Structure formats: C-alpha cells, structure tokens
C-alpha cells in the first residue's frame, strides 16, 4: 500500500485528485453534500456505498459527465470543473463495458490512440502490448459479440489504459461477472494497478470487493463521505454504526455510562470511557462486535482481565461449510451474531438451539462507536 505513495517514478504516470466542497443536487435531493476527498497520486481508492448513496455521481463528476452545483475538482493542481470529458485524459470503464460493437477488439483498443493521432505503427504496437497485458494477445481480430463476459471486461480495461491516462475511473466494472470470475478479476485488477501505477477511483457496492482491492476505502452514504481509511482500519475501527453495519457482519450492542464515565454493557465494564477521537453525538455509545472475533470461553480465559465474557443461549445454529454461524441471545434481549471456524472435531458436538454457552471477546477486538438512539 505505502509504496504507491513513493513519489519519483510515479509522478509521470499518475496524478492526485483533490475534491473540495463538492455539492450536486437533483431537485431538493442532495446527491453529493459538500464532499471533500484527497486522492493521492497512484492510489487505489474505492467509493463504497449502497445504491443511491452518491458514489456514482461523484465518479461521474470526476469524469466530467455531470456538472456539480458548486465545489472544485483538481487533477494535480489544475481545476477541472469546466473541462469537458474528452479533455480530462481519464480512462474509464463502465459496468456495461460499453464496447463498440461495430469495431473489432483491436479497433476498440486503438480508438483512443487514433483520436490522439498516434501513427499507425505505434498504434499497432501499443494495442498489442495492451492486449498482452490483459491476456488477450490472440484475440485482436475478434468481433465483440464473439467474446465472453470476462474477455469483454478485459478489452474495456485495455481500451481505458492504452493511452496512458494518469487517472483511471471504474464504475462497478465487475458486477456483471459471476462470482468466481469476479474474484479472479479483482486480483488481476489489483496487479494491473500496481503495474501501471495510475491513480484509480473505483466504485462498487460490494464491500468484500472494496476490502480486497483498495489502498483506501471511502464509505459514502446519503451524499456524504462517512469514513475514509485503509481497509483494515475501516473493518477494525468503524467510526459509526452505518460503517460497522455496511462493512462485514457485526452486532451493535448499546452501552451505558456509569457515574464515573465508564462504559458498561449490562453491568459489565467495557471501557474507562469513550474513545478520544470519536465525536460524541449525544446519543450515547455502542459496542461493535465482529462475529468471527467471538470465541467460546473455557477455564483458561475466565478471569482474564483482557477478555470480556458473555453468557448466552443459542437461538439458531447453522453449518455453512467453511464456517458455522450462530445467533446467541445475550442478557435476554440482545441477539449476538457469532461465527466459528469449522473442523471435523468441534462439530461432533454441534450446538443445539437452547444450549447455554459462555462466550469471550478480547478487549483488543472491541470497537466503541457513537450510539444510534
């Protein structure tokens, strides 16, 4: 991750993007509400959010296809707001691929080079190299309708980087592929990004995809960036309940502050006080529990002051192959999602609903967020 920010070699191939106070409304709905983002040169940034959150609006504003009401978008210091799309020099991949069906694979990839009046010999060479890069070296003469979904995806990609843009924008490029191919393409895209070193902005609604590919993830909801950070920070330290809920599985348990300011869950001390970097929204505090961080406690962990214990009753238990999922009722009214790793031994005595169970959670795995109610 960090090596992408190393400057010298990348300055040629990538540009930072600075978005400031960007606002776009449709009627009285805010698609983007005063958005600020600093995208570093060569970074892979993912815009992640539910549909209608404004992530695509932001991407299209960077590409130049919609005109924000106010704010600024700079590429390496140059204001772009009034620059038409064709002068922004941005490679773009759409969800529908948008390949030109009246051209062959090679003609599609050559299109941006022809527009730039590159000479024929060089076009041929660069198209061949680009197709090699996406492992389609043999298919230059094919028609688009002879290609599979994955191959189309690669052609769209080759077409978007063949003219060496310093910014690459992708709008849910993998969502039309089946799961296996999608996961394979995620790794390939990541490798390609490392190879090209180009600043990449990627839109998706798939949180796993975002975690897999990104240097940083910007979580967008309701036209605002809710949290922007590296995948591990986003996952381990969500800044509010929306992020905690949207990224991965989680259970959010309400906390209560006692007279001294300590935070308690059902009379069990969790923390000496709210985390300092968190903004107190006046709605109390809550605890985020990741299902896979919870373990079944035994003698060895009971009494350990770094472990929080819960007693609960199994409500549901489901075997899912690589893991098992349980819903456990804690303190009679809260349902805790728990995920266990599976191995053949532990499932000889699989849990039954109604079983009493003792659970533990390391204090280091605890995240406290502002409450919701």
């Amino acid at each position: 991750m960090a090596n992408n920010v190393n400057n010298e070699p990348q300055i040629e191939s990538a540009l930072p993007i600075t978005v400031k106070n960007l606002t776009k409304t449709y009627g009285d709905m805010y698609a983007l509400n005063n958005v600020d983002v600093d995208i570093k040169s060569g970074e892979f940034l993912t815009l992640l959010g539910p549909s209608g959150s404004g992530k695509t609006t932001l991407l299209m504003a960077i590409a130049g296809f919609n005109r924000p009401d106010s704010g600024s978008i700079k590429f390496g210091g140059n204001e772009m707001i009034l620059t038409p799309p064709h002068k922004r020099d941005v490679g773009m991949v759409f969800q529908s691929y948008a390949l030109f069906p009246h051209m062959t694979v090679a003609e599609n990839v050559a299109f941006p080079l022809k527009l730039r009046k590159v000479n024929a010999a060089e076009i041929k060479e660069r198209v061949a190299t680009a197709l090699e890069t996406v492992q389609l070296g043999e298919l230059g003469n094919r028609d688009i309708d002879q290609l599979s979904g994955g191959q189309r995806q690669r052609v769209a990609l080759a077409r978007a980087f063949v003219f060496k843009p310093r910014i690459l924008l992708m709008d849910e490029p993998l969502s039309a592929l089946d799961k296996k191919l999608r996961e394979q393409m995620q790794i390939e895209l990541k490798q390609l990004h490392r190879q090209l070193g180009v600043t990449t902005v990627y839109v998706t609604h798939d949180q796993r995809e975002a975690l897999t590919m990104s240097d940083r993830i910007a979580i967008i909801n309701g036209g605002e960036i809710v949290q922007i950070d590296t995948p591990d920070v986003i996952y381990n330290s969500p800044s509010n309940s929306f992020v905690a809920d949207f990224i991965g599985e989680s259970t959010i348990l309400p906390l209560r502050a006692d007279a001294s300011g300590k935070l308690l869950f059902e009379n069990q001390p969790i923390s000496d006080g709210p985390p300092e970097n968190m903004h107190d929204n006046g709605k109390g505090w809550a605890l985020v529990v990741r299902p896979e961080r919870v373990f079944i406690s035994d003698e060895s962990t009971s009494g350990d002051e770094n472990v929080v214990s819960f007693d609960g009753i199994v409500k549901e238990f489901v075997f899912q192959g690589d893991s098992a999922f349980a819903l456990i009722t804690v303190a009679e009214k809260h349902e805790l999602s728990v995920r266990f790793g599976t191995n053949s031994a532990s499932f000889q005595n699989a849990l039954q609903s109604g079983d009493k169970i003792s659970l533990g959670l390391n204090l280091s795995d605890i995240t406290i967020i502002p409450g919701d109610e």
Partner: protein
Amino acid sequence: MSWLKKAASDTQITHGNRIWLYVFAAIVMILLVVPTLIVIPMSFSDSQYLEFPPSKWSLRWYHEYLDSPKWMRATVKSLQIGTLTMLVATPIGVAAAYALFVSGHKAARLIFMFLITPMIVPVILIAIGAFYVFGQIGINNTVFGIVLAHTALAIPLVMIVTTSALRNYDLNQERVARSLGAPRIKAFFLITLPQIKFSVMTSALLAFLTSFDEVIISIFISGGVNATITKHMFSALRDYIDPTIAAISTILVIVSTVLLLTTQYISSREKKKK
C-alpha cells in the same frame, strides 16, 4: 387430411380447429391487397377505357406515359421533391430524436409530442393551413414550399424510427468515447451513428415515400411546372379516365413496394447484428 389433425402450436390446437382463423386472415389480406393489385392487369389493357379483365393485352399505356413530356416532367418533379424532403427531414428528425432522447429534460416529451403532431392531425388541415400561410409569403407552387410541407409530414416518421433505435443503444458507449478523447459531436458520428445507421436509412426511405406518395398537400400547394405526379394523376382522373393512370399506378405500386421491402430488409439486418 392428416394436416388438419396436426398441432398448430405448443398448445394442442390442431390446424383443423384453426381453419376459421386462416380463412378470416385470407379474407382480410385479399380486401387489403386486391384494390391495389387490380390496377396492374388493367394497365396492360389495349382498351381506351379502364376495363377489367382486359379483353386485349398491350403496353400502349406505358408508352403513352413514357412518351408524354407532361407526365415525365411531373415524375421528375416528384422524384426531386421526394429526394429533397428526404435530405431535409432525415437530419432534422435524427437530430431532434437524439436530442430529446438524451436530454431527459421534463419538456422533452412535450416537444416530442409537438413534433409528431403532423402525423396525428388530418392531412387536409395541414394542407389548408399550408395553402394559406404559403400564400401569404408567396411560396405556393414552389418546390421549396412543397418540400417544406412534406418535411413536416416526414419528420415524425424519422423521429419515431430513430428513437426506437436509440432505445436499443447503450448511451454509455458515447460516454466512453468522450472519456477516451472524442468531442461529443465526433463521438456521435464515430460511435452512435454507425450503430443506428440502418434505422436512419430506413427513416430516410420512409421520408422519401411520404413525399412521393403524398396527394392532398400536393393538390393544394403544387401546380404548374411544379405539380407532382400525384397531383397530375388526381387531375387526370377528374378530367378523363384512361388507362395511363393504371400504368402509372402500377409503377408507383412497384416503386413503393420495393422501397418498403428495402426498409424491411435493412431493419432485419440491424436486428441480426445485435
């Protein structure tokens, strides 16, 4: 008669059960087509008068038509007006359809409805209106005036055919082209137009046919040296009936049919490409 007992579709209806439908469909087709086709044998008659069936066959009425400077002039006029109408209506109609399709503005639908009114309003009203307005500005009996009126009639057809083609087209292709470095107008000509070209060609032929077959407006506002062939036919029918009309009608039927078949062929090729 085993055919009667065979299944006619995926349901177990037999051709025998369906026979009434076949008869009905045949009657409809006969009623639609026979009045048009009956002029064809009549045109090959040797008789002075329109007669069916002809007692004697000849090509004399075709000679009559082809040797008449008056008929030839009207024919050339009609071809000229049709071609000009096609050349004016096609770009305007395509541009309007594209703009209204892309814009997404609230008024777009309203403007679309407005532009296709010539198709809904009775042509006689357009003819009367055109006659008075063109009279005021002095362009009755001119090629310009007729082309103008025919263009108004042809634009709705061009727009409807083009819009339906655009519906099947992924506008993101044009966006991609723009992001790859093409100015918008170039993106349209390099990417969008090649993919709707068959529909544009179809609409151009329909625009030509609209003008070439048009009678009512021509009767009102074309005359003298700028009279169209349809106007001449109408006058000829009123003054004297001779089989020249049948000969010309036959030629018109053949021209129209060929053009319509061409549009069908073109649009089937477009579908195949998809």
